[in-house]
């Protein structure tokens, strides 16, 4: 009995010491909540490694919950550029064009995707690990690693131990290569931010251009079918773990481009279909290949179909054969 008490005490101590006694999913919940609530101000550096390595982009970020103000500091060509997102609209001011482009915010879509990811974690389709990690921007962190059910790492988040904010993030391809890394190098949290920092005020003589959202995202094929005249093709069956995550509709001129996006939480695969002419554009599509993306194009009547995705070859072929 005494031995058992000691074992329980040691295990409890270990549990408390590592990641402050919270489960990985609790840390993720905290991170998700922080994305919607925390106020901060800091400088962040972002670098892409795929499909081609790019120089770092340095941004001054002011955030208050879902409201963002991003001022680009580096590269020099971007200096003065401002992005404001108030959760409803996104303003992108490009000084040398003397234009502010106004788009609908994508944050509602991001919220839906986060919920989908949390569901996959709860159902065991994705695995999450939490452990103590090195400080980032002088702040204590917990490292959350999201892995496939087979144990392949997909995302790494270094989150603030106190507030749950993402301080560093790495996105990996299904092959395990880092596609992008972004991290704060300076940070004040919580920050006292006046609401007018998110007011879309730009220099005089700047043109405001309301941009039609090029794409509308739907949850099901049934919602899109009445908007297009051709029958939307779908795979008769999907490989295990794959689900339809989004149906996107975009206009090319007056012709719709429909895409059905499937994912198992690790890989993504999309079936595009349109009556618009797709001429010799294959080189552009193949430019995605550094991201382990495969492309196949074919015609069915007057509809051109393109299957594109980074799923394993056998999954790609299985979906290709199942498309009716």
């Amino acid at each position, binding site marked *: 009995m005494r031995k058992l008490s000691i074992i329980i005490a040691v295990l409890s101590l270990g549990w408390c010491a590592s990641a402050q006694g919270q489960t990985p999913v609790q840390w993720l919940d905290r991170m998700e909540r922080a994305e919607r609530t925390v106020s901060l101000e800091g400088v962040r550096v972002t670098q892409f490694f795929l499909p081609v390595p790019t120089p770092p982009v340095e941004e001054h970020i002011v955030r208050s919950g879902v409201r963002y103000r991003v001022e680009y500091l580096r590269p020099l060509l971007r200096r003065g550029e401002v992005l404001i997102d108030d959760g409803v609209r996104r303003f992108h001011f490009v000084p040398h064009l003397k234009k502010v482009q106004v788009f609908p915010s994508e944050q509602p879509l991001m919220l839906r995707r986060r919920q989908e990811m949390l569901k996959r974690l709860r159902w065991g389709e994705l695995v999450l690990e939490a452990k103590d990690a090195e400080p980032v921007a002088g702040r204590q962190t917990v490292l959350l690693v999201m892995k496939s059910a087979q144990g392949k790492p997909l995302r790494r988040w270094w989150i603030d131990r106190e507030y749950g904010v993402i301080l560093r993030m790495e996105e990996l391809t299904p092959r395990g290569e880092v596609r992008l890394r972004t991290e704060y190098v300076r940070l004040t949290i919580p920050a006292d931010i006046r609401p007018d920092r998110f007011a879309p005020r730009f220099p005089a003589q700047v043109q405001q251009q309301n941009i*039609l959202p090029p794409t509308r995202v739907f949850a099901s094929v049934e919602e899109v079918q009445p908007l297009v005249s051709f029958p939307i093709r779908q795979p008769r069956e999907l490989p295990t773990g794959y689900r339809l995550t989004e149906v996107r509709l975009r206009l090319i001129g007056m012709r719709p481009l429909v895409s059905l996006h499937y994912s198992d939480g690790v890989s993504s695969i999309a079936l595009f279909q349109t009556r618009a002419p797709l001429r010799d554009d294959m080189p552009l599509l193949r430019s995605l290949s550094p991201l382990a993306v495969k492309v196949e194009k074919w015609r069915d009547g007057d509809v051109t179909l393109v299957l594109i995705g980074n799923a394993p070859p056998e999954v790609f072929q299985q979906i290709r054969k199942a498309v009716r």
Partner: protein
Amino acid sequence: MKACREWEQFIVEYVDGVLDEQPRRSLEIHLASCKACAEAVKVQRWAKQVVAQLERERAPDYLSRRIRHHARDSLRRQGAIRLLARASFATAVAATLLLMLWWGNLRPEKMPAVPVEEPTVAQAIVQEYVGAMSNDGFSDPSLQLLAREAQMKTLRLEPMAQ
């Protein structure tokens, strides 16, 4: 028998509900048998909804009153002499358009909603795929913008060192 290309010019007016009765009936007959034009109508309706969702600049009250006044006048005249009324209505519409144009010129910093520069189908496919690929939902607005630019190779970079 008109070709689809000729019908296309009436579709916007049809969706806006301002097409005259005769061409509207003819177009509806055509739509019943032409899938391509029926699709164009659906798409135009969708585009109109999308535009309606975007914030619009409200015309000032005095301008709205003048527009309503012109419209009322033209409708009154419609009851007297049909032909003359039609001309009056056309005049009222032209005057309204001129007023709107004048108002637009007073506010040069504002522009109406416009579609994004037309991409090719392949460009649109790449943009859509990249937009949906990072599906964990933790990409903030700046990361979304940079990811698209990195994929389309339009990321503005430092000038090359000499």
